[in-house]
């Protein structure tokens, strides 16, 4: 890509390096990706190796995270489930990003009735509680991994559409867009070459934040039994299955819960750090405190 992109990338990396929280978040994310890719090989046992002699054993040398009610190794299940979580996050946010950016571009660029129709539709989607909407979509399409990803993608589309539209509305008034029109550039070319690159920063930030919420949503759907179907491991599903043993076998809930917590926290830390660098108009809390007398 161009020199501007390279320079921006370097600036972002420099800024992230100086922020210890962002470094921590990045390290966790890198580990998570490694686990997501290599989970099945890292896992000490098979995810569905039932061992009735080893049911509900607390953490030990043989089973560092203990075993569940079927004697399956919790560590192995947590490691393997990372892939599903990342996959759901990536695919659902990918759906939301593509759909939201497309709708937001059309609405913001053409305005008029198209804008009204698209954005009112987004408002309707936005008005539903996230989980309720996802449950409704799953109820229509039937439970499963693909449905969960589509449902979460639909749920997060309005936020991308809104961010994109807001950016387009300000960029399309810029003289360089009028200059491109005066040259004879097509609408598609103007949107792709001039508008989109100039609104990329807030979209990147929103993507990293949405990844966290998408993973959380998947856990919630799986907890409700509407996401990944057993016996495939998913963090939310593991929480659900362990809820009956909370008092006797804390490890069934704590380890998958900690995995969700760490993942979401890492995405949020990186997202916040990216926002500070790429979207300087939005003050961080620390800066806001400093600027108030």
């Amino acid at each position: 890509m161009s020199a501007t992109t390279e320079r921006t990338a370097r600036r972002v990396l420099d800024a992230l390096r100086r922020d210890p929280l962002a470094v921590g978040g990045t390290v966790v994310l890198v580990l998570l990706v490694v686990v997501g890719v290599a989970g099945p090989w890292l896992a000490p046992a098979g995810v569905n190796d039932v061992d009735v002699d080893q049911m509900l054993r607390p953490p030990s040398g043989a089973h560092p995270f203990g075993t569940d009610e079927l004697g399956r190794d919790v560590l192995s299940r947590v490691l393997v489930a990372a892939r599903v979580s990342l996959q759901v996050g990536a695919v659902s946010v990918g759906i939301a990003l593509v759909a939201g950016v497309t709708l937001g571009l059309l609405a913001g660029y053409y305005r008029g009735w198209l804008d009204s129709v698209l954005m009112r539709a987004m408002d309707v989607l936005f008005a539903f509680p996230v989980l309720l909407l996802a449950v409704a979509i799953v109820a229509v399409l039937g439970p499963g991994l693909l449905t969960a990803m589509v449902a979460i993608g639909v749920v997060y589309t309005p936020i991308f559409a809104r961010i994109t539209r807001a950016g387009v509305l300000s960029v399309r008034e810029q003289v360089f867009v009028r200059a491109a029109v005066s040259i004879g550039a097509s609408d598609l070319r103007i949107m792709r070459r001039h508008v989109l690159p100039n609104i990329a920063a807030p979209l990147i930030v929103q993507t990293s934040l949405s990844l966290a919420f998408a993973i959380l949503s998947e856990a919630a759907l799986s907890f409700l039994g509407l996401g990944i179907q057993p016996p495939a491991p998913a963090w939310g599903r593991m929480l659900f299955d362990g809820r009956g043993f909370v008092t006797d076998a804390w490890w069934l809930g704590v380890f998958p819960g900690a995995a969700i917590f760490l993942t979401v926290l890492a995405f949020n830390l990186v997202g916040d750090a990216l926002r500070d660098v790429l979207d300087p108009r939005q003050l961080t809390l620390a800066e806001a405190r400093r600027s108030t007398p």
Partner: protein
Amino acid sequence: MTAADVVAELDDLAVHFPTRAGVVRAVDGVTLAVRRGETLGLVGESGSGKSTAGLALLRLVDPTSGRVRVAGADVTRWSRRRLRGMRRHVAMVFQDPQASLDPRRTVGDSIAEPLTVHRLAASAAARRARVAELLDLVGLRAETADRHPHELSGGQRQRVGVARALAGEPDLIVLDEPIASLDLSVQAQIMNLLRHLQRDLGLTYLFIAHDLAAVEHMSDRIAVMYLGRIVETGPPERIYRQPAHPYTAALLSAVPVADPRVERERRRIVLTGDIPSPVDPPGGCRFRTRCPRARDECARTDPALAEVGPDHRAACLFPLDGEPDRDGGPAREDVPAA
């Protein structure tokens, strides 16, 4: 003057914008023809509609009524898609070169855009060669193509803007106050560049400016706009020495004279008040509310452009016919001196 000599024209054009305050009559009945090879200076205060008239020539604003003709074709009702082909024939240089260049794209990308859009280069290599040639034309080095706008000075940026306008070899270049946002020292350089390019390439300019001084040495003809209308048009030697419209005279008297002795002695016409709102222009002559010579009739009759000399027309019921008096403006008793 035959029709073939006209590269672009506005015919009784009106551009009205609906706003919350009412309909803004930005351009309200303007007829203007740009002839091949000339520089037409279009002068007026902010709010006079001069920029809107320029944008209308590129169909960057939608006309409310009247006609826009480019290269002989009536493009008034052309669709956006159809206009894209026409856009090669009319190029524009914008006032603020910083704002008119995409900050995320290199100078080379920006200059090459007309070549890409209109498929004027056979290959990427041909495009690069043409960009280098264009950069050379505007006095920039070929390496500038890899720079970004923020790495350049204001003058260099405007040179890039000019190079982009030249890329499609247009019949007409609309210069919308191309030097107004530049440092004084750079303004002369850009003016010289524009003049040399016109001489070498036989370009046609519509030069939009907010004061007469900017276009004096450049224009073959001048048109003065006030509140959406052309109030006077003619060759510069007439406009500058014998302005017929009181508004032109007032604009002229605002141009400082380099000789301090003359500057001290000369009488200046100071217009009172602001330009009236284009939402509700005065009835009759639009200039009467600020005209030092306004009489009762001016409120009743809306004067049309009428011949006052060779190729010289003014829209005034009582045109000035005083002696040539460049330094003090037309000296008349009913013109209050400041």
